[in-house]
């Protein structure tokens, strides 16, 4: 069949005008807006700051500063820890939901799938803002605790802590994690599970030896789509994190704002992209070890 199709294919006239028109929009956006713009960031990272748009000279001073100033190590480490915790929390809490969707949801599957992805399409800013009113000194959590007699005085302990950043980000990016895991679980052939149970595997053994390894590609994809946006986030630290939760995204943003040192901001961005590249490579390596089917 496929040989037949292939034999007929050359007959189809491929007009070059059609191809050009169809390739043009995508080519413009991907090459100019993505590749060229990222190239500019890389170029700017090796320039000195003289207040002009593209800086001056060729230098590695920006990277030397990033590598030698302990401030940047602290903030980078903090960003990695926060993003790592958020990724761990979202993936661990999303897995049972995805598992239920794949194996137990039955007729309710469509509705549940819609319900867990719906928050994904609502305003990120509003979701973060919701946590600000929950955690504030005279906010929802404090007033509810006092109202119910558990606490006698409101506490400042909730807002402006790194913990608040972790909780808020984990909530904001929760919908990202479910879908990739669900897709991976859903594509596991049911015959594999039957084979496991026929061969005498207990449910937990079957889960540990069959389901979990087979769903690893989905877990890694989920971890990636949560980790990437959280590691560069600057809105949540600003809203609920306070000064002790400054993240690398906050520093980049301020270099292009108040601090006005674009080349240094570009160098910080390059470092973040390198960190992400390492994480992607590690994930891809792990994925290959689990024999990815996706």
């Amino acid at each position, binding site marked *: 069949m496929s040989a037949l199709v292939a034999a007929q294919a050359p007959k189809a006239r491929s007009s070059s005008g059609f191809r050009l028109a169809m390739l043009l929009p995508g080519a413009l956006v991907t090459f100019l*807006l993505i590749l060229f713009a990222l190239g500019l960031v890389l170029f700017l990272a090796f320039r000195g700051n003289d207040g002009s748009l593209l800086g001056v000279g060729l230098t590695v001073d920006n990277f030397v500063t990033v590598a030698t100033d302990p401030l940047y190590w602290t903030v980078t480490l903090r960003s990695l820890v926060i993003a790592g915790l958020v990724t761990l929390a979202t993936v661990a809490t999303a897995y049972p939901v995805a598992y239920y969707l794949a194996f137990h949801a039955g007729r309710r599957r469509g509705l549940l799938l819609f319900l867990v992805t719906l928050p994904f399409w609502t305003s990120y800013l509003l979701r973060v803002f919701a946590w600000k009113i929950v955690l504030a000194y005279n*906010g929802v959590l404090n007033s509810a605790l006092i109202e119910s007699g558990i606490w006698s005085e409101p506490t400042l302990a909730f807002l402006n802590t790194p913990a608040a950043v972790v909780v808020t980000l984990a909530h904001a990016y929760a919908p990202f994690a479910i879908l990739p895991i669900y897709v991976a679980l859903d594509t596991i052939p049911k015959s594999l599970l039957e084979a496991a149970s026929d061969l005498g595997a207990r*449910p937990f053994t079957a889960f540990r030896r069959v389901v979990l390894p087979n769903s690893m590609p989905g877990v890694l994809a989920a971890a990636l789509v949560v980790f990437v946006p959280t590691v560069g986030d600057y809105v949540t630290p600003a809203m609920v994190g306070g000064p002790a939760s400054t993240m690398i995204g906050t520093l980049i943003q301020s270099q292009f704002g108040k601090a006005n040192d674009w080349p240094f901001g570009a160098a910080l961005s390059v470092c973040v992209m390198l960190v992400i590249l390492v994480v992607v490579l590690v994930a891809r390596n792990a994925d290959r070890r689990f024999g990815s089917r996706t």
Partner: protein
Amino acid sequence: MRVDRAGTKRDGRWLGLYVLAYLVFLYLPVLLIPLFSFNDSIQAAFPLQGFTLQWYETLYGNPALSGALVNSLVIATVAASGATLCGITVSYMDLYGRSPLAATISAIARLPILIPGVIVGISLLILINLIGLGPSRIAIVLGHILVALPTTVVVMRSRFAAIPRTVREAALDLGASDWTTFRRVMLPLSLPAVLSAFMLAFLISFDEFIVVFFLAGTEPTLPLYIWSQLRFPRSLPTVMALGTVILATSFIIAGTAEILRHRGLGAKRRNPA
């Protein structure tokens, strides 16, 4: 075997409870915004102080707000059109173009998922200043096309892939040109997905904050207006009223997009991605 099945059923029930708790955690903080938008108090705190619509009344006759709203609507419409056009052409050529260039473009188009928003923002900020555009509405549109692109490509690609290959081959064999096949056969067959991609891209642009922060000139979008209001405790109830309207609109548009995405061809195949 019977024991096994009973065990699975019990596991299912416990998992079901967990899913319920998870949904509560997912929705409760967000639903506090509508709750307190009707509360007759400046503070978002318990106990509730009685029902009021006064915060919604403050939304009327606010020129800064309506300016931001119009701005957001225009930008979201243009950006969603651009992102959908790119999503259609990129995924169509990826599947049927048979060229490494088309496959490369498709791969790069999905790359923004792996770039934090702050870096998308600053890279475009450098670019628009370089080409002399400067922070402006066009700059925001370009930024939002980029942010929405992975979504439109994924939605369109899964729809095009769900159309049996024979349909396109039949059209070509019957003498239709590439262009006619695309316009008269493939595009009409995937129209629900086109609408769905457009609506999702519209929502992404309408709610986007992280990238727009770097690209906006003197005319803010709605999320930027909200951000500017968050500094003033007195305006928080108004923000919650506005947030309620935005949440309700987002829910409706996302729901419609979801229904459209699974209509027609896609309905027969279970295709969550």
